[in-house]
């Protein structure tokens, strides 16, 4: 386009440009997948066939092939991104032209989009009493059109530039020179950036660089919000297996040393105690990671490990289904007493239950992702951490960051994202939502003791998108029950009950809170995920955006998400 005209802008088929963008991005994705496969199957060649001229030649050819294939990915992706941006820009400009033309026509002007001229009927000059004002209005419209055309021309030029600079060289192709490896400092720098910025950076890396970063720094990549879920999964599984192997070895070494001491130096109590403690510590951490491994084994291919850390009380994030491609994603925070070693399998099952119920509502399988997020230190059963806000205040920012990461890594299609929390986990969701930056479409909680505010509108701009379920005999969400139980505790009971109630605010299922209370037909605090229940069906209906189907006790559900 040497000179863009209104007619040209008007006639541009932005959908066609969008389809071409999708094509380039699909190709980039295929190159990425092929590179990962190539790297995976060829990385050990030099170890199993190390010597001789043929081995050296094969290694060199393998290196060149990996580099060249890998180098093809970023330019392909950049062309796709440029075309996508161009299509969106032109679509927006077309809308503005139509809007201005409609406004001008409504005020009696004639707009010729072929020539870009705006004219006024002669009567307008005579009737207005001020021909100069009419002329100024015409000039204003024309200037607006010119500005739009300038933007279209700029978009056209930058897109053309992006295409030309990213095409392969006619003789050298994309080259066989590998780009420099990603170092630890660069990765640590990413931790201070927004997930969107991290995602943008990650996409500039070649598959070879991404694979190297995952291989060399899996702990850093595995928790880096903004890195695509499938890459995080590879990194975290590497962390899991490496750490479990090391812990097994560690525990075995201490066990052998302990046996030796008991056999040969039984009076050395200090060493015996030291070895016993060290062995138990290794075994304890191993037990936590073994639970994660067990949950992943049960899940099979739909499972993605988005975070794992066995140190301290442990943190783990497991997705059932890929949140980067899912149409509907829910990220659930567990509550009181949740531990990595004690609850991971059961809580992942809950996510499977909700996932399976939601999946059946959709014509195509595999469009739902439900994520188990234990990215915070849940309150313990053996102290009073549950009555305070400290744990949720710590967890809220991490949860917010994770959710921003999912928005950044999701592909270009539609994405309905739901924040979910149970019990104390709902207060973590609340802390993230109260920042006003939680990028979700709905908030849904069960058995919540309160969400640190008195009204749902503090959590979502449209409180119709806040949902709360509570079993009638749930002692946590039904705060009157808490008081009933705490009254049984001598002396401190009433104080604890008040502290618990006051600490978290009104339960969100109460009508005064302004959220929708969905129907729960299960019993107690921990059974909201029984398969044959309306408790699960209603969670699935919210997750899939079919609000009109949700059974409600009170509230005003918003319009359904259009499929």
């Amino acid at each position, binding site marked *: 386009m040497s000179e863009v005209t209104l007619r040209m802008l008007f006639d541009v088929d932005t959908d066609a440009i969008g389809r071409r963008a999708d094509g380039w991005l699909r190709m980039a994705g295929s190159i990425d997948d092929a590179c990962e496969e190539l790297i995976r199957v060829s990385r050990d060649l030099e170890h199993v066939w190390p010597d001789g001229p043929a081995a050296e030649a094969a290694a060199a050819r393998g290196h060149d092939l990996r580099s060249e294939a890998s180098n093809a990915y970023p330019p392909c992706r950049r062309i796709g991104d440029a075309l996508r941006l161009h299509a969106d820009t032109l679509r927006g400009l077309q809308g503005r032209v139509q809007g201005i033309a409609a406004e001008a026509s409504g005020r009696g002007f004639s707009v010729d989009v072929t020539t870009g001229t705006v004219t006024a009927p002669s009567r307008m000059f005579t009737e207005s009493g001020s021909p100069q004002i009419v002329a100024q209005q015409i000039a204003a419209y024309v200037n607006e059109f010119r500005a739009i055309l300038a933007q279209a021309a700029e978009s056209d030029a930058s897109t053309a530039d992006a295409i030309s600079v990213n095409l392969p060289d006619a003789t050298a192709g994309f080259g066989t020179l590998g780009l420099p490896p990603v170092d630890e400092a660069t990765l640590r720098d990413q931790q201070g950036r927004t997930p969107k910025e991290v995602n943008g950076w990650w996409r500039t890396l070649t598959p070879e660089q991404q694979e190297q970063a995952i291989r060399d720094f899996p702990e850093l990549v595995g928790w880096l919000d903004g890195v695509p879920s499938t890459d995080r999964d590879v990194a975290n599984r590497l962390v899991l297996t490496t750490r479990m192997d090391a812990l097994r070895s560690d525990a075995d070494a201490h066990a052998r040393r302990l046996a030796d001491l008991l056999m040969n130096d039984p009076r050395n109590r200090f060493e015996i105690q030291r070895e016993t403690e060290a062995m138990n510590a290794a075994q304890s951490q191993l037990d936590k990671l073994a639970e994660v491994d067990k949950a992943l084994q049960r899940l099979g291919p739909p499972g993605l490990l988005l975070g794992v850390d066995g140190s301290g009380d442990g943190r783990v994030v497991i997705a059932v289904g890929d949140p980067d491609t899912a149409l509907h994603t829910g990220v659930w925070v567990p509550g009181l007493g949740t531990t990595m070693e004690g609850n991971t399998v059961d809580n992942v099952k809950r996510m499977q239950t909700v996932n399976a119920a939601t999946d*059946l509502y959709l014509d195509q399988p595999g469009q739902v992702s439900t994520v188990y997020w234990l990215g915070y230190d849940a309150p313990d059963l053996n102290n009073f951490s549950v009555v305070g806000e400290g744990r949720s205040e710590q967890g809220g920012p991490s949860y917010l960051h994770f959710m921003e990461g999912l928005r950044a890594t999701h592909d270009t299609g539609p994405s309905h994202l739901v924040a979910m929390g149970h019990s104390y986990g709902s207060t973590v969701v609340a802390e993230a939502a109260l920042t006003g930056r939680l990028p979700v479409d709905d908030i849904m909680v069960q058995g919540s003791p309160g969400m640190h505010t008195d009204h749902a509108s503090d959590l979502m701009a449209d409180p119709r998108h806040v949902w709360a379920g509570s079993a009638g005999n749930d002692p946590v969400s039904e705060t009157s029950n808490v008081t009933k139980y705490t009254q049984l505790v001598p002396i401190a009971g009433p104080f604890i009950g008040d502290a618990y109630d006051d600490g978290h605010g009104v339960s969100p299922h109460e009508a005064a809170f302004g959220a929708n209370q969905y129907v729960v037909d299960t019993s107690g605090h921990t059974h909201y995920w029984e398969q044959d229940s309306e408790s699960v069906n209603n969670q699935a209906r919210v997750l899939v955006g079919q609000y009109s*189907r949700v059974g409600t006790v009170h509230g005003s559900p918003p319009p359904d998400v259009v499929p």
Partner: protein
Amino acid sequence: MMLVTALAVAGCDGGKDDVETKTIDDAKAVVQARAESVAGQLGGVLTRPSLLDAPCTGRRGESGGDGVYFIQGGYQVALPAAEHVATAARVRDEWKAAGWTITDNRTIGTTAILAATTPDEFKVHLESTVQGSALALLVYSPCYGSPSGGNHAAWQ
């Protein structure tokens, strides 16, 4: 500490009832047969089948971890959206005539939701899919005891 203990144990005071003994495979076959029967009533065939076993829980939510389980059968039955409401109404009448207890019966536009419990304690749930090209069908068996005892875990 007493507070959290009280919270932790609340709602778990049930026990195991006597249930029919059946292997998981036999129980799955029973659910499959029931689903096929419902699909026949709907005038379609079952697609996207998934049969899962899961531990039963008692009326108060207690876990039946001692070998008491149920089967969940999930399916879709292709049916044009325009036929969902009428088909659900017809099937509802057939279920009533067969002595089933209707537990949910709603229509929202072209969306149909129908659920029932059978005299032999199966639960059946029908609901239009979001795009409307099919009815989702869920069939839950009553609880069975495993001949071999032991714990049951779903999704293995």
